[in-house]
């Protein structure tokens, strides 16, 4: 099989999967057929991207398909790589639907969703790009609505659809402005035409694209749909949406910023950097207050998109200042984090799905002690949690390290008042990653550790094998992607090289041995993630040996948890998720504006005896309340006004039609003549 057949394989198998779901909407066979389509499709996408990346990085070889350039190959690879475990996971996950829900819609849409995401990255012209972009939006909307009977799903779907169409408007406008006079929607033609535009117009195009793609990526303040839509979807779809789909927003920004506009003034980068830093910080701060496991993860997607955009923004800034070597570093950091985030966020959503599958709830306050009931799921979730908290030697750490290094290179920016952004971004990134660690101690600790807080948690069961395999594969991916940093960074460097006139040979010089050495001017750092991994494993193995050698006691006795000698320990004595986040809620009270109300029911006989205490703590959803609600209110009011023309009479509508036609013809005459 030549690599030329791969795109055909990819499209065919996705379509076959979709068709199979339509034909056999029920039963074990359906689940397997749907998944097989998606797995083969994902594998072909991965192979296609891999072939292209090999070709571009090794040079030579013949260009099998000019439609794949290295940048799209990276994103295609991400789609394919997450599609496989997600589809496999779906086999086990959707078994619970048996007899309750038809698999027709979700199965078909899953395959179409994957297909359109893959093809968005491959599209080389406006038409197909927008076509598949919209296909991706609609199929994912339908996937979100799978469990429309659950409370909140419809609302989440509406938000999602609204925001995605809002974004599409901006993307279309950006494309429209770039359209050459001959109307050719080819990206190469667009890029050529972009060179002839005035700087002001180019900036406008970029801003429009940033808003459009930023709303898909979940950049603050366009993130509001994300925390409600991602959790509402079935978990393997959440993994795809959070792990892959929002990354296409990053792809869009890179497509416009680098490929179509060919780089721009430094303030573009500055804007992206600032939005990224704000998203990173606000994302994690809101995640900390969230006790719905999947919503928490969704907020972390905002945080990680922020980190990606910090890298991308830094890269664009350096490019604007003519520092290509550092620019490569920034973009590499962003891309690397894109891949890593896809891996660990996919893993975490799958893990959360298993918990949901086992307990039937997403509320962390009703979980606890799951590590004993679901040992493998919890191990995999732990790996994901450590990776997203940027703990070495896992992948999250390595990519954040590259982003840090790029920011440290900020001292090379000649304009010092702009360079100030870099240390500020460093501080915000560091705070975000510290808070992320705190948040995942909460997420893992409250969910999996301690004593079960509800009957469901006590009765939880381990996930089916397919789900375990999917999670295990992604957990391995987290370890592996971290370990191979010394190969990944140069490879990604070559992907970025060539875009927007960046140097073909990445200035991030590399020692292929164990270590990774960055030596852009102003930023020099050296680590060896493989070395750290091996070192930690060796040391970890050495300690028990040393304990044995030095004859440390091996006596072990199991006894009650120490609780100052209290008679019985109950789950209610444990720290809750709310309590865990309480110090931070107080510290960042200015942001959260928390309100608490405590209502106490006293015993009728005496106020000294309390029957029950209800405690509610809420935070003000700032963006929803102050940014979106006024707009929505305004629109609703306006729509109410428009209702006046809805008479319901057919004649009235025909009159409108005729009137519109007349006006249009008049306009045509006016301009055309």
């Amino acid at each position: 099989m030549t690599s030329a057949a791969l795109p055909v394989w990819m499209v065919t198998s996705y379509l076959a999967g979709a068709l199979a779901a339509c034909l056999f909407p029920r039963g074990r066979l359906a689940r397997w057929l749907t998944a097989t389509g998606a797995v083969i499709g994902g594998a072909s996408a991965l192979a296609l991207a891999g072939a292209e990346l090999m070709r571009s990085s090794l040079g030579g070889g013949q260009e099998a398909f000019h439609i794949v350039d290295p940048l799209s190959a990276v994103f295609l690879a991400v789609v394919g790589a997450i599609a496989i475990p997600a589809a496999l996971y779906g086999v086990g996950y959707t078994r619970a639907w048996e007899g309750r829900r038809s698999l027709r819609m979700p199965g078909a849409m899953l395959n179409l969703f994957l297909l359109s995401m893959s093809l968005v990255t491959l599209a080389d012209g406006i038409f197909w790009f927008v076509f598949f972009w919209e296909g991706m939006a609609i199929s994912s909307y339908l996937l979100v609505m799978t469990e429309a009977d659950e409370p909140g799903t419809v609302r989440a779907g509406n938000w999602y659809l609204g925001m995605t169409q809002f974004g599409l408007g901006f993307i279309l406008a950006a494309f429209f402005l770039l359209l050459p006079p001959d109307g050719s929607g080819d990206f190469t033609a667009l890029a050529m035409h972009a060179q002839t535009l005035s700087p002001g117009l180019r900036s406008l195009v970029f801003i429009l694209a940033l808003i459009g793609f930023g709303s898909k990526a979940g950049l603050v303040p366009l993130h509001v749909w994300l925390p409600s839509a991602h959790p509402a979807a079935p978990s393997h779809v959440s993994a795809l949406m959070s792990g892959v789909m929002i990354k296409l927003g990053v792809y869009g920004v890179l497509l416009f910023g680098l490929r179509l506009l060919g780089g721009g003034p430094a303030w573009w980068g500055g804007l992206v950097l600032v939005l990224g830093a704000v998203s990173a910080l606000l994302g994690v701060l809101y995640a900390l207050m969230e006790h719905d496991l999947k919503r928490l993860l969704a907020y972390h997607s905002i945080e990680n998109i922020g980190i990606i955009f910090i890298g991308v923004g830094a890269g664009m800034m350096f490019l604007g200042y003519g520092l290509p070597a550092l620019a490569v570093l920034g973009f590499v950091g962003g891309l690397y984090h894109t891949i890593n985030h896809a891996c660990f966020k996919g893993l975490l959503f799958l893990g959360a799905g298993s918990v949901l599958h086992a307990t039937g709830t997403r509320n962390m306050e009703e979980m606890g002690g799951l590590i004993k009931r679901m040992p493998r799921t919890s191990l995999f979730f732990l790996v994901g949690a450590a990776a997203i908290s940027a703990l070495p030697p896992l992948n999250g750490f390595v990519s954040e390290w590259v982003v840090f290094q790029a920011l440290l290179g900020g001292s090379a920016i000649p304009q010092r008042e702009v360079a100030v952004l870099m240390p500020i971004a460093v501080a915000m990134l560091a705070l975000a990653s510290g808070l992320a660690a705190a948040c995942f101690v909460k997420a893992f600790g409250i969910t999996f550790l301690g004593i079960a807080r509800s009957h469901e948690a006590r009765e939880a069961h381990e996930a089916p094998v397919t789900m375990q395999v999917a999670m295990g594969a992604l957990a391995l991916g987290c370890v592996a992607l971290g370990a191979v940093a010394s190969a990944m960074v140069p490879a990604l460097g070559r992907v970025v090289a060539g875009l927007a006139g960046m140097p073909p040979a990445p200035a991030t010089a590399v020692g292929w041995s164990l270590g990774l050495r960055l030596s852009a001017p102003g930023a020099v750092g050296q680590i060896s993630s493989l070395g750290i991994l091996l070192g930690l494993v060796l040391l970890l193995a050495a300690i028990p040996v040393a304990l044995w050698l030095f004859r440390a006691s091996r006596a072990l006795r199991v006894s009650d948890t120490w609780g100052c000698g209290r008679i019985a320990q109950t789950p209610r004595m444990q720290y809750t998720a709310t309590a865990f986040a309480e110090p931070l809620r107080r510290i960042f009270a200015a942001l959260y504006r928390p309100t608490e109300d405590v209502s106490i029911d006293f015993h009728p006989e005496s106020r000294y005896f309390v029957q029950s205490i209800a405690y509610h703590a809420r935070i003000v959803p700032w963006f929803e309340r102050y940014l979106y609600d006024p707009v929505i209110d305004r629109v609703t009011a306006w729509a109410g006004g428009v209702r006046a023309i809805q008479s319901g009479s057919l004649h009235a509508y025909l009159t409108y039609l005729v009137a519109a036609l007349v006006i249009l013809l008049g306009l045509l005459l006016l301009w055309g003549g």
Partner: protein
Amino acid sequence: MGLFSKIFRTGIVSEAIPSGDPDIVHLVREVDARSRRLLGRALGIREVDAGSCNGCEIEISGLMSPVYDSERFGFHFVASPRHADLLLVTGPVTRNMEVPLRKTYEATPAPKLVVAVGDCAHTCGVFKGSYAVAGSVDQIIPVDVFVDGCPPEPADILRGILTALGRSPRA
């Protein structure tokens, strides 16, 4: 700066432990040599108030003062029985504290010692026969040393602990 000049003017005030009255400290069980060797110079003490009038506690808090300075013997008070090697129990064991005392003893990793401080801990003192009292400490958990007195002086308590460890007060 006034603080530090006062510190320097005062100098070290820790006093040697006098040998004292031999009738006050009663060794119930001889501690084995291994435990003595291990715990002799590094001892975590968990104080358990099993129902005392707090008179003994006031004296025990004197152990940490600069004058008696139990830290020079390698003793320190710990926050959890898991970290402890020796339980310092005071008071007659009340019915409410019976289970907690057992649980504390259970929570302490072996090898462990118990020193019961005060007359109440030994004989239930004036609370003897009360409906609220479950018994003396040795009726609930095994005791190694009793220190008598109502309340015993800090020096006596130190001697009691040292006796449990098989050490002489001179150290």
